[in-house]
């Protein structure tokens, strides 16, 4: 698949900022260096992203788990992958909970958040079990259709009175140095690329790296705007009073000569949609990484693990083209229920988690707890990025040894010189 799909991976995180706690975390620290955090996160992530994409070029059509399978012993690989799976699972869970919470609060006022959460989780599960390439196609389509709604906000800023851009001058003047939490929260905007660790198996990495730099710069500038608008509109002090500053910002914008005077509803639907896409992508990665943990070799992971007789049905997956990723129909042909269950064990585990534990937790715990959880999860964001980077460096180093052996004949002189 073409490299343009990387754009959507980036966008899914960069544009979902309105839903979730990242603006709140950043705005809490507005007096001490939130802008410095934005700049710092930009530079840091620019470096990490370029490095990771540069490294991934050595592993065309491979995802993280198959890269690690070659270079790291299973004893180390399995815990590492489980750790990554958990990170992705939490990321997806947090955003789907935010979507349910915000739509219950602002969009369908009075509706039970639990019902909405169930509906969204079913949607997400149905989409996440698709093949990787189809997930990307769906992502592109949905994203392009949502984009006009998001730009409504930008248009509305020109027609709304009472935006005090000078508030930003005040905050910039205060200066200050960011702490780790703010740096991590500001990094969240760029972190969407990390899904490439899975989608690398379907996306070709034939593009120039300077395009990435431009893309990241665009995200940086966009986020400067998205971060500054609540401050300019809600005030330097009152902006920290809100749970979801961005939702309130969207609510305060007014387009006088439009079919709907409030820019709020279309914009909110747009942002919720992006957040749902975010969950789909994250849970798809979770699912695929879980699948890769099966001891069965290669792609014929399906029925062997059940220990039962060989059936003809398992070949649906085995016949896949390599550049399409996993995914399978929910109810396959000619299977009995047990085999069916075991074949899709990972999916059913995720479904069981999503349909029982997550709603239970959401129903019982106050939303502030998810705020704390989000803060903690964000603190691990940069270390996780660096961990992935280190693993890739290690794998590249290990495989480059074997690559050099292949090329041994072409340049024997250099080796003797170093020796």
């Amino acid at each position: 698949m073409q490299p343009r799909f990387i754009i959507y991976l980036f966008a899914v995180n960069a544009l979902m900022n309105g839903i979730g706690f990242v603006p709140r975390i950043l705005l809490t620290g507005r007096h001490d260096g939130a802008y410095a955090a934005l700049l710092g996160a930009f530079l840091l992530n620019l470096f990490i992203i370029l490095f990771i994409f540069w490294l991934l070029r050595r592993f065309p059509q491979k995802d993280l788990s198959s890269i690690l399978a070659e270079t790291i012993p299973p004893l180390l690989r399995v815990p590492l992958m489980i750790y990554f799976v958990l990170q992705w699972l939490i990321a997806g869970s947090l955003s789907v909970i935010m979507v349910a919470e915000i739509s219950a609060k602002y969009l369908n006022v009075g509706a039970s958040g639990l019902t909405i959460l169930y509906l969204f989780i079913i949607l997400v599960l149905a989409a996440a079990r698709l093949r990787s390439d189809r997930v990307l196609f769906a992502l592109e389509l949905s994203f392009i259709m949502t984009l006009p709604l998001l730009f409504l906000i930008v248009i509305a800023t020109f027609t709304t009175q009472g935006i005090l851009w000078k508030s930003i001058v005040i905050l910039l003047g205060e200066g200050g140095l960011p702490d780790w939490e703010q740096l991590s929260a500001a990094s969240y905007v760029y972190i969407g690329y990390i899904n490439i660790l899975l989608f690398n198996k379907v996306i070709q990495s034939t593009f120039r790296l300077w395009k990435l730099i431009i893309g990241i710069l665009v995200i940086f500038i966009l986020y400067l705007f998205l971060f500054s608008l609540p401050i300019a509109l809600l005030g330097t002090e009152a902006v920290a009073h809100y749970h979801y500053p961005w939702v309130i910002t969207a609510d305060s914008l007014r387009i006088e000569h439009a079919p709907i005077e409030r820019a709020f509803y279309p914009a909110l639907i747009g942002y919720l949609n992006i957040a749902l896409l975010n969950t789909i992508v994250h849970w798809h990665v979770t699912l695929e990484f879980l699948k890769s943990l099966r001891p069965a070799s290669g792609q014929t992971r399906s029925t062997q693990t059940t220990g039962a007789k060989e059936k003809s049905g398992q070949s649906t997956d085995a016949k896949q083209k390599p550049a399409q990723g996993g995914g399978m129909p929910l109810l396959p042909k000619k299977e009995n229920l047990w085999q069916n269950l075991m074949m899709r064990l990972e999916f059913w585990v995720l479904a069981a988690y999503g349909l029982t534990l997550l709603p239970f937790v959401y129903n019982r715990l106050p939303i502030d707890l998810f705020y704390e959880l989000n803060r903690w999860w964000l603190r691990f964001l940069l270390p996780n990025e660096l961990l992935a980077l280190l693993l890739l460096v290690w794998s590249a180093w290990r495989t480059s040894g074997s690559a050099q052996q292949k090329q041994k004949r072409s340049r024997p002189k250099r080796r003797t010189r170093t020796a």
Partner: protein
Amino acid sequence: MQKRQIVLPSAFIRSNFMPLLLAFFLSLITAGCAYKDIDKRAFVMSIGVDPAPEKESEAEDDRRDQDVYEVTLKVAIPTSDIKSGENLFVLFSATGKTIAEAIQKVMPMIEGNLDFSHTKIIFFSKSLAEDVKLRDLIDWFIRMETIQDIALVALAEPTAKDVLSLSPPTERLPANSLFTALDGSGTTAPTIAHSPLIDVYRRLYEPGLDPSLPIVQTVGKKNYKITRAALFDKERLKLILDPEETEWFNFLAGSTSNVTLGDVPKGYFFHVDPNRASSRFTLRQTPQGKLTIVWHLVLNGSIDERQGKPVSDKEKISAEVRRLAEQKTRDLTEKLLQHRLDPLGFGFEYRTRKPHKKDFAAFQKMYPQLQVSVETRTVIYETGNLIR
């Protein structure tokens, strides 16, 4: 073993169509939870808050238990076609110690579910704004998710209930007349300022920027006028400007440029053109260390009317206009400084230069002693159809 296998029945169920069907049936659940039909909702167009009428009671305990607020809701009665003068509505009132409690008491009075998503104006009666902190009054409104953050806030005189019960003959939809007047989409009267809920809340907490609200007065049983502005500090109503001051205040605040200057004895009426007038201020540090507010006014306008024995020289008229504008600006600014009110954002401007809290505290201390100077540019660029 073979017998226990559960074989799924038909190709239809096995196909990928199943999840779609499942999702469809699940979406039917939503109809039961919160979606109410539109005819089972009561759309609240406007809310008014008054002080509760005092009970005649001697006992201490009774007095402590007394309700504080009387909340009035203006509920629209939907009509099939929109006609002038058919603005049907009902008013519901209840008292409570909090605004939320009073609204809870209104709920059993009407068959539909109260829906605040169309609430566009919020009135507080003037006497309430003098007694109760504005932060407390506004809390419920800003906290409710359903109330629009762009709803307009205004003070009502004599009471909010009186203003809500107005039904101007020109009105087509309930509460629409006042909304059109207050949000600036209709009349461009210079005495009307716009104060959305979100802006009032911001100003209540922003150092160096205080809230101001327009005052709606009833005129007879059917009409109203909006000619004055109420200025608040961070807590209560402090100052009410008279109509002339209000007009000039709105011009200085930048919310209108449709101002007029007249000096009747000399016989001209100077109308500033909305497209060519502007006002802004800067802060300037004098060599002696005194801080000066410097107003830069641009008043390009036209002569609308001349009466009696007019001054014929345009230069003289310009000079007169300049003198009047400067005097008005100086008087108003000094009045604000004296009352320690900052609705125009002098402190906010100061913070853009020195953002630290310590500096701002010092600024607040010297606030009443700030100097004012005015620089005005006036061009009379047209005199209507007549040459003179």
